[in-house]
């Protein structure tokens, strides 16, 4: 039922959104240095939903920062064949001086997209996250879940190909850094369903960082477990289309593995 895949998977020739080859990241130097990531090999296929799972300090966020171009790897290579990855952070981090639509338009504005085109795209993206008609609201007038949806629409706006319309040759990639962990349980549940809907509607690849095993199994097609300090890929599970009993047993299995990884740090 649960296909355990080795970390070094045989790569297919299918188009990949991003590929890590022996990626390492060290913070600081000399004796004070901390190895955040070590020899990470990972790939996300175009349109694939991959969840990165791990305890705190496993370098999940570092990994996302590397893909997003917010930081540089110390060793190894990252092949990014997608257009600029879109990033959703744990906090919505909306610009408080802009309306919801203004926030979605911001990346388009910085990319020099014309006003009417910006309006049209922002309205379409707000519709996609079910916030059509609320574009005029300010962030403080929205609930936490709505803010995170605006942040998602904004991230999608930043990845959209502005030069050509439609047929983007490059696969798009969405990076999400524990985007729902600051929300209450029922909002999180609704947003998870929304995210799956948007993923199916847009066909974007998603690299989703979380520390919640249940969330990872529910959302992802593949779950990748990272160890902590240094972060290495421990194991991968194929969890696509699991339901009922097999889903529960997979969650248990991943949980057990995660606990084993964490307790190895106790000594």
């Amino acid at each position, binding site marked *: 039922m649960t296909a355990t895949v080795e970390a070094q998977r045989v790569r297919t020739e299918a188009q990949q959104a991003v590929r890590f080859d022996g990626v390492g990241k060290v913070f600081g130097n000399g004796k004070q240095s901390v190895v955040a990531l070590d020899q990470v090999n990972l790939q996300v296929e175009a349109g694939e939903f991959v969840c990165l799972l791990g305890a705190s300090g496993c370098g999940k966020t570092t990994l996302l920062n590397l893909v997003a171009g917010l930081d540089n790897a110390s060793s190894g290579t990252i092949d990014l064949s997608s257009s600029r990855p879109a990033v959703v952070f744990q906090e919505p981090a909306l*610009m408080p*001086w802009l309306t919801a639509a203004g926030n979605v338009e911001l990346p388009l504005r910085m990319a020099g997209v014309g006003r009417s085109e910006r309006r049209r795209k922002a309205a379409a993206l707000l519709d996609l996250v079910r916030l059509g008609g609320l574009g005029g609201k300010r962030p403080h007038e929205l*609930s936490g879940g*709505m803010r995170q949806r605006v942040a998602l629409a904004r991230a999608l706006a930043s990845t959209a190909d502005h030069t050509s319309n439609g047929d983007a040759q490059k696969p798009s990639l969405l990076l999400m850094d524990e985007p729902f962990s600051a929300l209450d349980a029922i*909002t999180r549940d609704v947003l998870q369903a929304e995210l799956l809907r948007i993923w199916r509607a847009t066909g974007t690849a998603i690299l989703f960082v979380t520390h919640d095993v249940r969330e990872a199994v529910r959302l992802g097609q593949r779950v990748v477990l990272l160890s902590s300090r240094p972060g290495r890929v421990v194991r991968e599970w194929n969890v696509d289309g699991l339901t009922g009993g097999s889903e529960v047993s997979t969650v248990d299995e991943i949980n057990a593995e995660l606990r084993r990884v964490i307790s190895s740090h106790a000594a």
Partner: protein
Amino acid sequence: MQPEASLEERVARADAESVGAGLDALDTPLSERATGPAAVAKRLAARVLPPVVAIALMIGIWQALWAAAIWEEYKLPAPSAVWANIWSLVTTGKIVDLFWVSVHRAVIGFAISLVIAVPLGLAIANLKVVRRGIGPLVSGLQSLPSVAWVPAAILWFGLNDRAIYWVVLLGAVPSIANGLVSGLDQVPPILPRVGQALGASRLGGIRYILLPAALPGFLGGLKQGWAFSWRSLMAAELIATSPDLGEGLGQYLHNGMSLSDISLVFAGIILIFVVGVGIELLVFRPLENSVLRSRGLTRST
């Protein structure tokens, strides 16, 4: 990607959608600001009445103290005598000249300060060397009363407008620059990071993210900068009096002292107060309020 959804799936999805819509409705913060003429009038009254009552009370106490004749007439003038002075300025139109001389100096001085202070503040906030080098100096200048520069300014420039502008600049530039620096320092670090992730260039990040994010702190600095430039200007006008300089409010006050006319002195103080407070209330308060309200940072007053 998605095959035909079965009936249960569609029902489940519709259910999830209605839960989502319900959550949106429940979690959206309510705006408690009532509109309508009655509510607006009530808010206005609540805003205007207390200061009016306070001023009336103060004038009443003043009148009573004067009537009790505890101090001699040349120390405490009658409110009516002070009012007569102000009123004669109004009827002769001299008040326009007084205001014009002082306010245009303050505005020009403030504008020059702005031109100097904004690049200075940006440099202090963004360049570590500059911050370490002159950051403490600029903060220190803020606590040095700029009136201390009056003797030096007169010796350097003589008794003219340049001396006065020098004093005003040294009063206003440090507070505007410091306001901008603290505004930039208080920008949550996540915002520039988000900007970078959204594809902002270095300049784009400053223009679209950093500057608007720093605006509330910057406005606070502007407000304080205005207060400092007005204060410095009055001090400079009061000390540096000369026929070449024209008569502003500071000179008017100085004349009152020379003539030992306490009612003239009181009228001068009141006029200086009115201009300083008036510009803050008419220009800076509405600006600040609208910026704060649009960001959901409403202030209580």
